[in-house]
């Protein structure tokens, strides 16, 4: 079952790994989670997925993912639900110097 699409917002630095765009969209399917959304992204944009998750599938330490403004580390991490019409924002955290 497909509902309203899910917007995925990326920082500028990840645009080259996403076909040159900062915004992607995927169908809002039933049961979609952050993890399955990233799985799907990885099939089309493997470099983008490697930027976000390591080989074990863990979201990199200084990458933050928000679903409708909520940090997934405060939700259910990669099991967090992504509903139809949701907005998933991927950002680099405050790190480096």
């Amino acid at each position, binding site marked *: 079952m497909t509902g309203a699409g899910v917007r995925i917002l990326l920082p500028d630095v990840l645009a080259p790994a996403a076909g040159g765009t900062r915004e992607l969209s995927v169908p809002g399917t039933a049961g979609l989670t952050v993890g399955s959304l990233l799985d799907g992204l990885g099939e089309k944009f493997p470099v983008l997925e*490697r930027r976000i998750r390591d080989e074990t599938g863990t979201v990199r330490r200084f990458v933050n993912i928000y679903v409708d403004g909520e940090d997934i580390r405060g939700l259910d991490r990669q099991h967090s639900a992504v509903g139809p019409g949701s907005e998933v924002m991927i950002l680099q955290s405050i790190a480096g110097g």
Partner: protein
Amino acid sequence: MSAMTQTTDNILAVGTRKGLWLARSNDRTDWLLSGPYFLMNEVASVALDSRHSPPRILAGLLSPHWGPTVVMSDDLGETWTEPEAGAITFPSGSGESLGRIWQLQPDSAARPDVVWAGCEPISVWKSTDGGTSFELNQALWNHPHRPDWGEGYGGAAAHTVLPSPADETVHVAISSGGVYRSDDGGDSWAARNRGISAYFLPDPDPEFGQCVHKVARDAGDPSRLYAQNHHGVYRSDDSGDTWVSIAEGLPADFGFVMLAHPRTSGTVWTIPLVADGERIPPDGELAVYRSTDAGGTWARLDSGLPQSEYNAVLRDAAALDTSEPVGVYFGTRAGDVYASADEGGTFTLVASNLPDVLCVRAAQLGSPEP
């Protein structure tokens, strides 16, 4: 200066904590700098693979946000490619993830597509396609010593991989695990540290656990090795079976660098630092030391170098080229890069105020004109 050095183009790659810089020179004295490439990526390893023409540049990047990856360029940095699946990734199900790429080492001309990598966590990798994809060396990964290998200040890594051009011998240096040797191209590994002290352990003469900082192979005798350790400078004449100190004559036995002449047996360079707890050039004066008798005696080389320097030179932040005479290059943690076109006799400043220099490599472009 010979006609050869006047007419030959040269390239220098400088990996720093915040990106890669490249420099070109016709005389190895005046350098034109370009960069940064991959700004805000730590570049802990770079290789100029001269088996390709022009040399293939391989760089090991680490973004604090987006993780590690290997990139390559076959046009001297004009364009770069990155394998989609990642050149170095731990096998699915291993439960491990790549931390940092410490070493990218092309093999000999006889094995033209082979490139080795040394990484963190402690692992050695081999590519047979020029660096596009690497396979984890399972024999070292599953070595029974692994649980007891330690971690140096910079992390736990296989930071040096030295394939022998003579046969299937490969040496690996681990901080802190010591030197390991394979006689069969990496199918099996054995610790080779007898004679190297580990003063920081309860038993100062263990089978393994030494903190070797860099190992270099002699050009004339592939079974002769030189090692700069975490205190201690050593030579082995039997492929690492035994080591003897060659620190006498140096102002300090601590440091990170060890370079061996690409053609002349017995000629090596190192850059001493005061001590473990200080890690500055002795008396705050930057100097390179060269031996032409396999470490029997050492000569101080400081012409052109600043006489006030309180920054270290890290293990891969020094390199040689293969020109005649050999060029000597190094960079400091203050971001200053120096080059010598006369085997260390005189140094000139290539670049200053870059981020901390982590690695340096140099190569000659094309064939020298007569």
